């Protein structure tokens, strides 16, 4: 089953709406709470990234029997140095974003920590496409 959520740029008041809606679906699939928690943390971080750094984007969730795949696709401007972005504490967030309590440089590292597979396709000046995979095999 596929579910899509739009994520607007710069609107922090809706941060967490997509991940919260996804959670409601996951609870109906008898997935164990710890796995739901991992998915929630990763998707929330990705959602905030889209709001804080991109020109807007969408979250595409594919729910399958044994795995959940979540793609986060924004419309740019891309990540110039991915290795740096994957470093804990490194952040390009603006002062405005940090004042809201975000931008601690934990976004991508947290995503990596919580998902089973992660691929990131990005290029400076282009869009960013993150694919996160979560295995459901060990649960239940």
């Amino acid at each position: 089953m596929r579910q899509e959520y739009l994520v607007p740029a710069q609107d922090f008041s809706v941060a967490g709406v997509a991940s919260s809606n996804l959670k409601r679906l996951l609870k109906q699939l008898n997935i164990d709470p710890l796995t739901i928690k991992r998915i929630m943390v990763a998707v929330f971080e990705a959602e905030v990234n889209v709001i804080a750094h991109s020109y807007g984007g969408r979250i595409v969730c594919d729910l399958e029997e044994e795995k959940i795949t979540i793609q986060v696709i924004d419309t740019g401007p891309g990540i110039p140095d991915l290795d740096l972005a994957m470093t804990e504490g490194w952040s390009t967030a603006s002062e405005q974003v940090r004042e809201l309590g975000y931008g601690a440089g934990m976004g991508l590292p947290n995503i990596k920590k919580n998902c089973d597979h992660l691929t990131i396709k990005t290029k400076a000046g282009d869009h960013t496409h993150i694919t996160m995979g979560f295995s459901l095999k060990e649960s239940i």
Partner: protein
Amino acid sequence: MSDLSLHHSLQVINEACKGCTHCMKRCPTGAIRISKGKAVISADLCIDCGQCMAVCPNHAIRIEQDPLSQLQRFTYRVGIVPAPFFAQFPDTLTVTQVLAALYDIGFTHIYLAETGIDILDVLEAEEKEKPLPLISNFCPAVQRLIQIRYPLLVGNLSRLRSPAQVTAIFAKSELAAFGESLGIFYFTPCAAKIAQFKTEGSEEHRLFDGIINFDTAYNQVSVLLAREKERYASKQAGFTFPHCTRKALRWSLVKGQSSNQKGRALAVDEMHNVIEFLDILEDEQETSLQFLELDACAEGCVGGILTVRNRFLATEQLRHWSTNLPKELPQDLTERILAQKHSFENNLCLDAPQPKQVLGLDKDRSKALQKLEKVDRILAVLPGIDCGLCGCPSCLALAQDVAKSQASLRQCVVLKLKDPKELNSLARIWGERPTAAGGQMDDQA
């Protein structure tokens, strides 16, 4: 612990139920449907909060009520009474008079349930684990709500014994000499505590020998005090354990717990506020809060479904009494608690509560996925006005019930009025038989 089949204390009285949908709309876990014109409560989802009973205009929801004759099974009868019980009576009656009447009803010992808070303090009870934020387990309806609706927060629930449990253990320990002839009875302001006690295998079931509803005891005491006014005017009576501290007496009031926590703490009362708050909390990635006091009833236990007096008056009464109580427990009483310390060794924490996975659409995940998709497609054709006439609390709930084959799309009154033929073909598309298969709606009309 986790696989206990929960007992429920609330029942629908079919003769009185008009199928009006008030309870269905109020139920915090979506446990109620109207079927064949009567409310039906799902045992899997009910948390015994009593909201349905509070909102029913036809008095069609009954709560279990055990008679006081149950006391006769024991020679020595201990009442564990929460302070809000004494706040049920008007100012013209004193605690001494109420106590005297309780002894006359048949109790040999009366302990204040709140004594358990002081006992936990004296014994320096500590949580086994300290999740942040820690959620109080004082309100059993909230604990059940979290187990059902918020599986991600179950790990945050406190595991300390409740004050009433602690007081029961203490009383049993002090009165151990009476052995089997000792019965311990808990006074309850709410349905959730009854359900807890009657759930076989629960700690309450083990510790208490019976449960007495606030209103039952209130009536008995009031009758005695009214009939023999003069006699009670001069009678002397006291608690078996004479004092509790000021903070203990306020424990069941809103902020009674949170105001006594170190660090940042918050109190939320009344079911819809609690739900609004837990929805946010479960999404929250990080929070600075250390402690949460969540009460299902407005104003805490004084707002319980079995209370008699206005909850604001009862709150004021308890606050007023508490000002005369000591901040610290007197030395002799502290020693009296320490003398029973052996009964509490490794006995102050409970097993971790487990989530109850009842929100799933199907035990088999591939079937659950199919049903989830079906819900989406059905929801798209429903009117989305949540009128409740189909017997489900919302269009989403109807869609879920249809996907689970527990309801028929034909129950939708709006679709039926708009275009009955279209509805029939839609129902066929979802695999329902052309006519009588979804007969529920016809019975209701």
